[in-house]
């Protein structure tokens, strides 16, 4: 568990030996794919052993996981539908990470975003659907953005640790949601499961033509791409990365660190808030406790597995969306508890973090000097 040996076979697949110096020249990039890949394979192996202890065949496990995630067109659509909120909640961790901040409160921003979007939709019932959807998106982003900006402001102006405050804000958001959904925003006809009124079928986000995947996936991909450009191709992003690398140097060269923190945290929360809006407008149609499905927490894992790179978040979200999509099949065919997806995610997370120790240590990728 402590050390992860890189698989040489995999390396040759990724990088065919084009010229002798190829591995050395692209060593850094290859490492970013090889090491998380190897960590993933190791985690799947350990999970296989884990289910084998309960008398299940690991090969069946891998087969059904593949089937449930990518085996059919139906499972692909399920996977992509789950990937959409994961891309957005992962950005909630990946963007502040550029500043060296560890924000783990994406779930809270998602809930606040969902709540604000629902409130706007319910008060705009007279408007045409497009206006309602735009209003919902704006409300979700502002709600979620302010929520995480609060954690950023507390860090900047009061020195409160943002990891702990953002997690506490998740529980506070959940309490507010339950309070409103069981109180003033409750639809009196929702008896067993308190919910708000429906936002109206006409106002729902549709599917991407030819699929059952909703438009949230496109929102996610656009947000991730925009974040990538912002971080790696603008002065603002450069300043953020400087501040993340060395905060004292950033202050010495006169960067407005406080402004950077607040802006980045707002954008991060806005992404997660948009995920909440998408879950309301494309999946649930209303707000209730179902929204706290853990997308915010899985998003943290996505961000770490993608090494906080906004563009790498997209494929990783599809990967983990696949794992969570296969949960149902594992439950039906292998009789595994629904928490098995969570266990696997936990093992992957542990392996990915432990594999951080490997960077710069793989012999054949080192530059010869």
């Amino acid at each position, binding site marked *: 568990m402590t050390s992860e040996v890189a698989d040489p076979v995999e390396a040759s697949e990724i990088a065919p030996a084009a010229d002798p110096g190829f591995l050395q020249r692209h060593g850094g990039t290859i490492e970013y794919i090889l090491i998380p890949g190897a960590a993933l394979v190791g985690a799947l192996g350990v999970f296989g052993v884990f289910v084998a202890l309960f008398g299940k065949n690991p090969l069946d496990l891998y087969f059904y996981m593949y089937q449930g995630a990518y085996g059919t067109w139906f499972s692909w659509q399920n996977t992509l539908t789950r990937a959409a909120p994961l891309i957005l909640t992962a950005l909630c961790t990946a963007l502040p990470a550029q500043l060296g901040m560890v924000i783990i409160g994406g779930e809270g921003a998602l809930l606040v975003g969902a709540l604000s979007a629902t409130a706007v939709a319910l008060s705009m019932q007279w408007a045409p659907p497009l206006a309602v959807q735009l209003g919902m998106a704006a409300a979700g982003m502002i709600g979620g953005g302010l929520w995480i900006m609060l954690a950023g402001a507390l860090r900047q102006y009061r020195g409160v640790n943002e990891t702990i405050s953002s997690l506490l804000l998740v529980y*506070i958001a959940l309490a507010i949601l339950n309070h409103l959904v069981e109180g003033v925003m409750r639809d009196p006809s929702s008896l067993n499961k308190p919910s708000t009124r429906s936002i109206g079928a006409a106002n729902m986000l549709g599917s991407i033509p030819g699929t059952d995947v909703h438009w949230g996936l496109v929102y996610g991909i656009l947000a991730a791409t925009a974040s990538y450009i912002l971080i790696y191709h603008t002065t603002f992003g450069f300043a953020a990365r400087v501040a993340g690398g060395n905060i004292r140097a950033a202050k010495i060269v006169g960067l407005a660190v406080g402004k950077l923190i607040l802006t980045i945290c707002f954008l991060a929360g806005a992404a997660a808030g948009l995920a909440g809006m998408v879950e309301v407008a494309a999946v649930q149609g209303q707000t209730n406790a179902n929204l706290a499905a853990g997308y915010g927490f899985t998003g943290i894992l996505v961000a770490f597995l993608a090494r906080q790179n906004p563009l790498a978040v997209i494929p990783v979200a599809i990967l983990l969306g696949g794992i969570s999509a296969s949960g149902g099949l594992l439950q039906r065919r292998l009789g595994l508890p629904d928490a098995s997806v969570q266990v696997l995610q936990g093992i992957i997370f542990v392996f990915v973090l432990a594999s951080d120790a490997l960077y710069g240590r793989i012999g054949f990728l080192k530059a010869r000097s």
Partner: protein
Amino acid sequence: MADGTIGLWTVPLAVFGGAIRVSTPFLFVSLGECITERSGRINLGLEGTLVMGAMSAYGISYLTGSPWLGVLAAGVTGALLGALHAGICSLPRVNDVAVGIALMLFGTGLAFYLGKPLIEPTAARLPAIDFGWWSDIAQVRAALQINALFLIGVVLAPILYWAFKTTRWGLLIRTAGESSDAAKAMGYSVLGIRLRATMVGGFLAGIGGSFLSLFYPGSWNEGLSSGQGITAVALVIFARWDPMLCLWASLAFGGAAALGPALQSVGVTSGYHLFNAAPYILTLAIMIITCSPKRTLTGAPAELSITR
């Protein structure tokens, strides 16, 4: 609950009783985390440890019929998770905050996985010591049903305070937390000290979890702990890494957490969820008041990544 004989006094009484009952997991987790953080490492995974402890205590108590064996099993489970945390953090360039988040997800996932068959059966619960025998009032008696684990925790706090101050072990842990170079120069293994400190911290957090499933609320389900572990970690920060302050803070938290159920018992149901969020709001408020961007916190171990 409210029979009207003591009227609104039910609320402060229930808060008092709740403070004792609800504070116990906070107390154990914060004392454990206090030891770990004093050694220079932060373990955010204690939320997962708490849930794993609750699950394993319930399972062992159900299988053996002995709740105290369950408590022990919870402690051992916690120590193992602590060892896992410390082991991964010993690797170069691995961030302890991130490992804590990973173990939080892993611990809760594993507990839900293994605990699935435990939701139905009823396990033997920890007995309560009846301190309210002198009273005729039912609420007073209920409030004074105190569990032995609470008393152990209350005794443990001054012992830890004393141990940090005067014993060799306390000094070693503090040295590792203040300056790993100094500990190295004295010929001690910093990683070894932190491993042991994290394991002891996990042991205590596991016991805190056993209280949840074996005494109050006293059953195993997936909603057993929502953030109590992480609240306790935050609590250590404003308790300034002082075990005695951890004790007082835990009691304050228990009282805050008992407010919602206490008000509900006298018929105040509006705002129930908001009152349930009181411990989180209180934690955040106290962190806002006590932290400062200008200076590092007094009493903070210098090696701790979270305060640097």
